[in-house]
């Protein structure tokens, strides 16, 4: 199995080269592997029908617990029929659909095959992570395939919406998988389904998150709007990805997990509500579309809602209906898409208002299209009818109120489906008064055959209903069957489901006949039911927030940046200091009276710096602060420290002076208003006050004895024969530090000297040196 999946990806990598020789026949080469997969699935059919499975597992990244685990069972088998079966048809169709010399052929063929591989992996995956990986790969392939030539803004928007919505859903699903896996203690899907984790808040959360992924992928309300938007893709791509296979991934996931979770609280109510809502809205919107392809897309949305309900319900008969509808939908929808593709290809339009008289020109094509559309509408003896009958029967069986409500929804939805199916037939093939007959060349056989094959199968499986019975029954096995298990058949006698079917068809015909009146509604929906504005508002809201925050905090203003850092400093460590710290018990205002004037001097200078208008004044005032600190050192009996401080200050001042000679004498910033300064004042005062308070708190908080200084004092007489401990430290204990400091000073002095020389050399201010000047002085201060 893994070999098959890998082979797809390898072939996809080779196809661009192949297509250089073979042109569009590369699609045919690409069709080989899906054909092989289909053949392999058919050979495994008997084993799977007997209840067996095929397992395969390869360790990938054991550290992360990543294993590729694949497993073929009945559900996978059904999906492979769609993925590989439709894949073969589509790829053959592509050979005749695309222009022989189109540049995009190599890309499209490679992506289609890669997508087929990813999808095959997805339906075979038996490990949550494996599933997720293939899930996202299909998203990426879909995006790249849709992005053929979207040149209008609308197309760009819809394609990004498609990607965004599905990626968002995928990520939430990943989270759900992780939560579920942690709950269950395993990431193997088969094991989780066999022994599901106990119901609880966490499990429910996980399920909701997983459903979110499934709903976005399968275009359920309110995420459905991406699917009609994705119809900008070439028709074969739409037929494959957005009708037959990829959008079924969500349905598949629900079908996969339903045996374990259909009785968990959020699972079924959520699926039923959104599924039916989707079915109704999709069907309703399809009644107004003038573009045949978009009409089909809304039809797909509607049918996906239907399938969701069938797959999530968790009863035997409904599950059989689900399996039947899954295949039936794949068959008739691919037929219809391919037919639309042919019409578009030959007639150059797919607008209902422009097409006319196709039926007379292409009788064979009309028959094929009619089979597809009537199967969609649920007309016997076609395959779609079987599925719908089974669904009605399934929800009638139990007779509970909930099921009956669901049934009513399904009947309404089916009526809408019937209506738009007729509308499709009329729109595509009908002759409209006042419209010229479309002139179109005959389509080639290569286009007709891929469309005819699924139509033929639709007819065959419908007429010989028992053919599919075994598959559907095997699929429904996990759910307990009643005493008289349901079986697929065209004729169950005069029964309520048959009556409902008749009602559905009749109202569908009625709706279609009244189309002029219906169309006047114009697809109107109350605002709160529309999903698109919601999406747009979310995106616009994010943008607004982003602009507002960027404008306020990221305007390139250094003071703002600094303020953010300082505020964080005030709030986080500051709150720790204020709540946890205690002031020292004994506080003296000063040790000696001389400290007072010095302190006042320093404070005045510090405040004055912020008000200085001339650069030189500011520098000198900063110097005053520095010298003041030096004075404190003298007063506290540290003359050596004071000396160093004075030296550094002087050097800095000199450096500044030389730099300032090349700058304008006043600060260039204009102070137009006084008010905006207050926040800055507040922030700096708060930060300064906090530093002051913490200095007090910390000095009181220290408990450990000052080992270092005591150690030095002890060691000085013996170790260095010194009476002055400061001397001993400078020249003995920390001699290397002293050397280092001296060299730093020397380097700084060299810098100053070079500045002096540089001033002589050039009169013009040079940008490079302006920035280097202050930096050097900064380094000195450190």
């Amino acid at each position: 199995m893994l070999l098959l999946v890998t082979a797809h990806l390898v072939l996809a990598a080779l196809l661009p080269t192949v297509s250089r020789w073979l042109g569009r026949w590369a699609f045919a080469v690409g069709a080989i592997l899906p054909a092989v997969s289909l053949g392999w699935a058919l050979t495994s059919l008997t084993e799977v029908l007997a209840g067996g499975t095929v397992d395969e597992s390869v360790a990938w990244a054991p550290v992360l617990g990543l294993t590729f685990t694949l497993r073929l069972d009945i559900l996978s088998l059904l999906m492979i029929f769609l993925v590989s079966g439709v894949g073969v048809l589509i790829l053959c169709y592509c050979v005749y659909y695309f222009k022989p010399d189109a540049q995009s052929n190599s890309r499209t063929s490679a992506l289609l095959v890669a997508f087929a591989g990813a999808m095959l992996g997805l339906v075979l995956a038996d490990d949550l992570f494996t599933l997720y990986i293939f899930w996202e790969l299909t998203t990426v392939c879909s995006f790249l395939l849709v992005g053929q030539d979207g040149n209008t803004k609308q197309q760009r928007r819809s394609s990004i919406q498609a990607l965004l919505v599905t990626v968002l859903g995928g990520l939430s699903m990943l989270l759900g998988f992780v939560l579920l896996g942690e709950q269950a203690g395993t990431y193997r899907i088969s094991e989780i389904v066999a022994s599901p984790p106990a119901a609880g808040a966490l499990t429910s959360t996980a399920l909701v998150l997983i459903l979110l992924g499934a709903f976005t992928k399968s275009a359920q309300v309110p995420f459905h709007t991406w699917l009609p938007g994705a119809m900008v893709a070439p028709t074969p791509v739409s037929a494959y990805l957005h009708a037959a296979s990829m959008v079924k991934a969500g349905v598949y996931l629900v079908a996969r997990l339903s045996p374990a979770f259909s009785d968990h609280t959020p699972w079924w109510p959520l699926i039923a509500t959104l599924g039916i809502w989707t079915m109704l809205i999709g069907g309703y919107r399809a009644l107004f579309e003038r573009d045949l392809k978009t009409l089909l897309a809304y039809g797909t949305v509607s049918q996906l809602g239907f399938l969701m309900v069938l797959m999530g319900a968790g009863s035997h008969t409904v599950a059989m209906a689900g399996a039947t509808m899954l295949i039936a939908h794949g068959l008739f929808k691919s037929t219809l898409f391919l037919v639309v593709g042919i019409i578009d290809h030959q007639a150059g339009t797919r607008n209902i208002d422009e097409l006319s008289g196709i039926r007379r020109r292409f009788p064979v094509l009309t028959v094929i299209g009619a089979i597809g559309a009537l199967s969609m509408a649920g007309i016997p003896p076609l395959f779609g009818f079987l599925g719908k009958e089974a669904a009605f029967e399934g929800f009638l069986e139990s007779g509970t109120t909930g099921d009956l409500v669901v049934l009513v929804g399904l009947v309404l939805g089916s009526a809408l489906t019937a209506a738009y199916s007729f509308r499709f037939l009329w729109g595509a093939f009908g002759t409209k008064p006042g419209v010229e007959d479309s002139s179109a060349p005959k389509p080639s056989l290569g286009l007709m055959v891929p469309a005819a094959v699924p139509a033929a199968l639709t007819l065959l499986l419908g007429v010989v209903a028992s053919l599919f019975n075994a598959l559907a029954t095997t699929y429904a096995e996990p759910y307990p069957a009643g005493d008289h298990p349901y079986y697929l058949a065209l004729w169950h006698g005069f029964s309520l489901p048959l009556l409902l079917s008749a009602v559905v068809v009749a109202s569908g015909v009625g709706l279609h006949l009244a189309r002029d009146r219906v169309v006047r509604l114009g697809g109107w929906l109350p605002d709160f039911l529309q999903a698109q504005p919601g999406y747009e508002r979310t995106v616009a809201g994010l943008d607004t927030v982003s602009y507002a925050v960027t404008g306020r905090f990221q305007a390139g203003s250094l003071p703002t940046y600094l303020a953010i850092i300082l505020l964080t400093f005030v709030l986080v460590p500051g709150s720790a200091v204020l709540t946890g710290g205690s002031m020292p018990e004994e506080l003296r205002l000063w040790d000696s009276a001389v400290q007072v004037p010095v302190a006042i001097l320093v404070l005045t200078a510090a405040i004055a710096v912020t008000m200085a208008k001339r650069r030189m004044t500011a520098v000198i005032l900063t110097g005053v602060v520095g010298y003041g600190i030096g004075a404190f050192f003298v007063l506290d009996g540290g003359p050596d420290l004071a000396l160093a401080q004075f030296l550094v200050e002087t050097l800095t001042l000199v450096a500044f002076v030389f730099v300032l000679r090349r700058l304008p004498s006043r600060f260039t910033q204009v102070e137009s208003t006084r008010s905006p300064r207050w926040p800055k004042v507040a922030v700096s005062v708060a930060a300064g006050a906090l530093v002051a308070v913490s200095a007090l708190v910390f000095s009181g908080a220290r408990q450990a004895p000052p080992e270092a200084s005591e150690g030095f004092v002890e060691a000085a007489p013996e170790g260095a024969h010194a009476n002055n401990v400061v001397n001993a430290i400078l020249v003995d204990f920390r001699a290397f530090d002293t050397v280092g400091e001296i060299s730093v000073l020397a380097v700084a002095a060299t810098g100053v000297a070079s500045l002096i020389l540089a001033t002589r050399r050039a009169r013009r201010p040079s940008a490079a040196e302006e920035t280097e000047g202050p930096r050097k002085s900064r380094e000195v201060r450190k």
Partner: protein
Amino acid sequence: MFQATLGSQDVAQSAVNIPEIDWQAISPVVVVFVAACLSVLVEAFLPRERRWSVQVTLSLLTVVVAGLALGLYVNSDAVVGTGGITVAGQAVPLFSADYPALFLWGTLLALSFGALLLIADRSVDGGAFASPVPPAPGGDPVQYQAPGRQTEVFPLALFALGGMMVFLAANDLLTMFVALEVLSLPLYLMCGLARRRRLISQESAVKYFLLGAFSSAFFLYGLALLYGYAGSVRLVDIAAATAGTDRPETLLYAGFGLLVVGLLFKASIGPFHAWTPDVYQGAPTPVTAFMAACTKVAAFGAILRVLTLAFEASSWEWRGVLWAVAIVSMLIGAVLGLTQTDMKRMIAYSSIAHAGFLLVGAIAMTEDGLSGTMFYLLAYGFTTLAAFGIITLVRDGNGEATHLSQWAGLAKRSPLVAVTFAFLLLALAGIPMTSGFMGKLAVFSAAIADGMAPLVVVALLASAIAAFFYLRVIVLMYFSEPAQDGPTVSVPGAFTTAAITLGVVVTLLLGVLPAFALDWASVGGFVS
């Protein structure tokens, strides 16, 4: 202050202790520093026209030799993982070549090899770096064609690299601080060296320097407070002090807070990220690549080390704060990235968001968290390196065309560049089969295993928002009509091609076969 803090041990033992040096273990660092000094000499004594080739050869060779030394040590018979510089009588080296350090050294060397390739490339438009010669009088100081080439960037880069290697291996806060400065000062300078758009480049250098100086001061202040708390600057001693004593907690919390501010600043984690977009945008793109890839590795290496070795016991007290920081960072990066119109700024915001993701792994405090974060660093570094490499290629008449609108329709003009860039963006968004996915998976699963599910929810939300702006670029490249006078894509020189290829191959390789790197990342933890 230095004299006082350093003194205690050796004075107390009253004998000169010569630290035990495991030369083989630290040989990569030694190689880098020796080469950096050589490189300065080359700059001083070689004639101008020969410097470039010698500097390029020397610096690339240095990284290769250091990498070989690292490989030799890891594969040697010696007991790997305990070496370093050990002060006698201490169990834990002062400067430790333990497994995480070795892994991150390897990462750093590989990344800086790529970054140096980008720096060295001058085939496009003569390279990104300015000559120090000022413009002629009357010339345009903002943009001018300088004669000669800037080669000062090579010794600076080597010093920065050496500083980073020491920074993430330092087991005491003072060594760490010195390394912090050794790595920062060259970076400040390198930011201002752009040949084009000089004013914005220099503005970025000044901003980075001023804010960086502030954060260094915070780091130092925190260090002092922690010394006051524990009586030592060694991480293990701080850990011992935090484990059940009646010391005043105020000093610990305030010290921790200040220390962490310094570290978070270097890792450009919100709300200390403010410099990142301006600096990433202003600095020459190869330097931005170097910073984005290597500085992040170094800063997170240090964060992991400090948190694990010194503050594990007190983790319950600070975890809430770092949760908040991680959330802020992820949201800031993701939401603000949405409206960016400049490619480099956009990747800067993405790096802020990624820093948040990394922090999620770093505060998990488990072995999986450690290895996951290190793997993420490796993966992210290569992806972002290659992304910046591609940005250097898309140019118009005024140098790099970094405005988003200029990238419209790039796929039509240059499919290969577009597909490569799209792949890298998908990796940044964390799509499967890229290293980005594996990194996120590793980090997030470690975080969930450690009971941080709510944080992971926010992280996934942020990933989804961030995915929006990556995907928007892809859409722009593939779906739009190219602008009439849009930028041209330069044919990359051999160096840039090599760097981008390296980045892309690693991104793909780690996405498809992550096992070997993950295994290596989880060989062992910090020695304590």
